[in-house]
């Protein structure tokens, strides 16, 4: 089966910044896929190239088998993109906006589908309201609706829940999950690891324009479930048993990496057994940035 998204050797430079540095990626049809990474990792650049908003310097990208530059019309028909910025045209109402967007794709009698999308996104009551009068959350939902007017097989959402309240976020995810069950391929970018965790079957992590990890969500999370135990010690030295787990000292605290929170008791016991006093204890979940560092390290060891 043709992959929904196929990217090979993709490179893009903006001035002095290498936004993408040789990205290879394949997303199968029907997948729920997450692109993770810190700001500046290249997520939005990758999406922009797929959507035709940016041109690659090298490499190729295809959506449902259609080359995004050479066969841009077919590629764009196959793709719905929800942009990150809350953009709208203040001249029009919600329904006008969706009719215009349908028309751009050559769909002139699309009202039945528009009504269905409005209903699913809880926008029916606002159908005739001007875009200017909508709240941020509603504008976000209209952006989702705009991306769906032409029933694209592949849907990309760039940070869809940034600045969206919790209740709406749940509703939005329920809707997107339904689209996925109906056969749409979903790709989303997010900062929130837990969103990827609950929704996505596969995850790619980008850093500095490269894919640093690409695996099923379950496998990746297995590597990320640890905690950092930070302790102030008297005397300030770690016993032999814990030295293998030591990370660089941070703020005068010794940092010990543990695979599971349950190992904290063992670590404290090891300190006590050596007669080392614990003056201060902090427990931290590694954030995404640290998760990255660990993943990069694992990749390098594997290589």
């Amino acid at each position, binding site marked *: 089966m043709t992959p929904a998204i196929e990217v090979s050797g993709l490179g893009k430079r903006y001035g002095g910044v290498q936004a993408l540095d040789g990205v290879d990626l394949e997303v199968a049809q029907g997948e729920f896929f997450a692109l993770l990474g810190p700001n500046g990792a290249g997520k939005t650049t990758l999406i922009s190239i797929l959507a035709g*908003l*940016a041109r690659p310097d090298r490499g190729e990208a295809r959506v449902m088998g259609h080359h995004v530059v050479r066969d841009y019309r077919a590629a764009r028909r196959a793709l719905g993109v929800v942009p990150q910025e809350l953009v709208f045209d203040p001249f029009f109402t919600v329904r006008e906006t969706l009719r*215009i967007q*349908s028309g*751009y794709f050559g769909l002139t009698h699309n009202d039945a589908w528009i009504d269905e999308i409005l209903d699913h996104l809880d926008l029916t009551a606002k159908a005739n309201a001007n875009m200017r009068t909508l709240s941020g959350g509603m504008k976000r939902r209209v952006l989702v609706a*705009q991306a769906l007017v032409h029933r694209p097989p592949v849907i990309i959402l760039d940070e869809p829940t940034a600045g969206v309240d919790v209740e709406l976020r749940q509703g939005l995810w329920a809707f997107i999950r339904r689209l996925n069950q109906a056969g749409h391929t979903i790709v989303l970018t997010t900062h929130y690891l837990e969103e990827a965790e609950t929704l996505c079957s596969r995850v790619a992590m980008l850093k500095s324009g490269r894919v640093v990890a690409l695996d099923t969500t379950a496998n990746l999370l297995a590597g990320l479930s640890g905690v950092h135990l930070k302790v102030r010690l008297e005397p300030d030295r770690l016993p032999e048993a814990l030295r293998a787990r030591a990370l660089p000292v941070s703020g005068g605290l010794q940092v010990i990496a543990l695979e599971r929170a349950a190992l904290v008791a063992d670590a404290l016991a090891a300190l006590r057994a050596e007669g080392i006093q614990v003056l201060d204890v902090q427990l931290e979940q590694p954030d995404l940035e640290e998760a990255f560092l660990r993943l990069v390290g694992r990749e390098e060891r594997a290589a």
Partner: protein
Amino acid sequence: MSGFLTLLRKELLRFWKVAFQTVAAPILTAALYLLVFSHVLEAHVQVYPGVSYTAFLVPGLAMMSLLQNAFANTSSSLIQSKITGNIVFVLLTPLSHAELYWAYICAAVVRGVMVGAGVFAVTLITGPVPLPHPLWAAAFAVLGGGILGALGLIAGIWADKFDQLAAFQNFVIVPLTFLSGVFYSVHSLPPFWQAASHLNPFFYMIDGFRYGFFGVSDIAPLTGLCIVGATFGGLSFVSLRLLRSGWKLRS
């Protein structure tokens, strides 16, 4: 085709929803010019024999308004879409470069012609205005609107800020329209400025348009039409190349 029609319709609605500013206001401005200039100069100036100064002024003012509003339509639409970011809704679609171009240009011509026709209609109050060659007038009106629409498109894509666009309008478009013979015949100028006027494409648009009204012009109308047509062809070629390259629109 329907993608083109949708974008055209959207561009038409964009100015029509605020027609008070985009159509009525420029008509009023032109009417004020006509009122003041014709009142002051009617007794003193005769450009073509047997044509009163007021009658001479009408087609020039109508065309000047047409041209300025055709420019305003594409340039303001593009800069607004770029600054608010909603240009992305057009860029994400399968619309071809040519569909995009012609939709913007047609909308610009429609607004220009509406304003020009409005100015003409208002001036009928001052007395009947002859129009012996309406097809010549129409040809120059449409091509002139197209030229300014294309210039507005290029300026709108080029400009990153409203003040850059305003500078383009104030320092390029307005001087060229004013110095194109709207208020005088270039034959009344000293030889140097007469020659300079012949380098101004706006001169040919106004002159040819005026031929439709009086059957008299500074340049043979067919020559003028060729020059104006070639200018539009050249600008269309450049615009389409820019759109294809994604200049300033696709990074």
